């Protein structure tokens, strides 16, 4: 049971926070489409993309069960490490002030301007608005699908909590979008990315090791230890990164 919780909780949290980051970015564009081109095109485009994404999860998720677990853990572990450590590196560089933070309000303004430049909305169905909403939901949603399938494929019974986390994030972001009705610029996007980067890197290392037959000290409890390890390394690196430009110019 202890081992189960060591898997389940990080799986649920990683899926929830990672999906939330992606859905917040998609919401910004969908709001821009709704404001400029109309809500019918925005919602139908987003809805169509969500349907395609659900089919992808339904097909790909169980299909992974046909591949030997050791291979899945190796491949998914390596991909999760590439994905998670990339996010962690970017979040660390942003937190250190090396690269600018992502700004949802600026993204909304840019998207709104671009959509206004695509001509007026006619009387019929607005293909421009539909395509814009469909494309952004697919783009961000593909990332969510990868995260859900990757963290759900590493062990038996993890796909359900991974799906649950993503659906909960979708519900939260959609509800906030309806209530707030503007980009969710107040969400601490970089902190979420940092957290998700830590979680996915830890899962990736654990599963890649499992795929190689590594006997982790403490068994499943190596996952919280890896989470703590990646968090500590990233926090120290961020601190050192803040000093780096001064050191380089000295």
């Amino acid at each position: 049971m202890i081992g189960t919780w060591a898997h389940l909780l990080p799986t649920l949290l990683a899926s929830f926070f990672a999906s939330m980051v992606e859905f917040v970015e998609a919401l910004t564009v969908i709001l821009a489409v709704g404001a400029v081109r109309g809500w019918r095109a925005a919602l139908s485009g987003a809805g169509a993309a969500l349907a395609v994404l659900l089919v992808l999860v339904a097909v790909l998720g169980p299909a992974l069960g046909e591949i030997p677990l050791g291979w899945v853990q190796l491949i998914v572990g390596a991909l999760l490490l590439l994905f998670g450590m990339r996010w962690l590196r970017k979040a660390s560089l942003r937190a250190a002030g090396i690269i600018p933070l992502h700004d949802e309000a600026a993204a909304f303004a840019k998207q709104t301007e671009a959509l206004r430049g695509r001509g007026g909305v006619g009387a019929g169905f607005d293909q421009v608005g539909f395509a814009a909403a469909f494309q952004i939901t697919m783009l961000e949603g593909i990332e969510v699908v990868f995260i859900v399938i990757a963290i759900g494929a590493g062990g038996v019974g993890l796909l359900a909590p991974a799906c649950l986390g993503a659906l909960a994030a979708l519900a939260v972001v959609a509800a906030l979008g309806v209530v707030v009705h503007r980009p969710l610029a107040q969400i601490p996007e970089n902190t979420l990315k940092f957290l998700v980067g830590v979680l996915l890197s830890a899962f990736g290392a654990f599963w890649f090791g499992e795929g190689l037959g590594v006997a982790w000290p403490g068994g499943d409890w190596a996952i919280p230890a890896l989470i703590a390890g990646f968090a500590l390394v990233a926090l120290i690196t961020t601190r050192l990164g803040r000093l780096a430009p001064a050191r380089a110019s000295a």
Partner: protein
Amino acid sequence: MKWLKTIWDEFIGLFVDDVSFAGAIVVWLAAAHVLFHMDLVPGAWRGPLLFAGLAVIFVENTLRRARK
């Protein structure tokens, strides 16, 4: 079809945005595979060694980018 290419590019971009960083991770994972397969590392050290290599890659690459 252009949007399909955009989605494909975005998918690859999930894993690689700094080639040297992604390359170092892949090389280390391959090296760990060989080292463990050839039994060159004692069993109890394999997990910590895998993590340590990843941590070194992260710190080195992030600080190198910070100093640019």
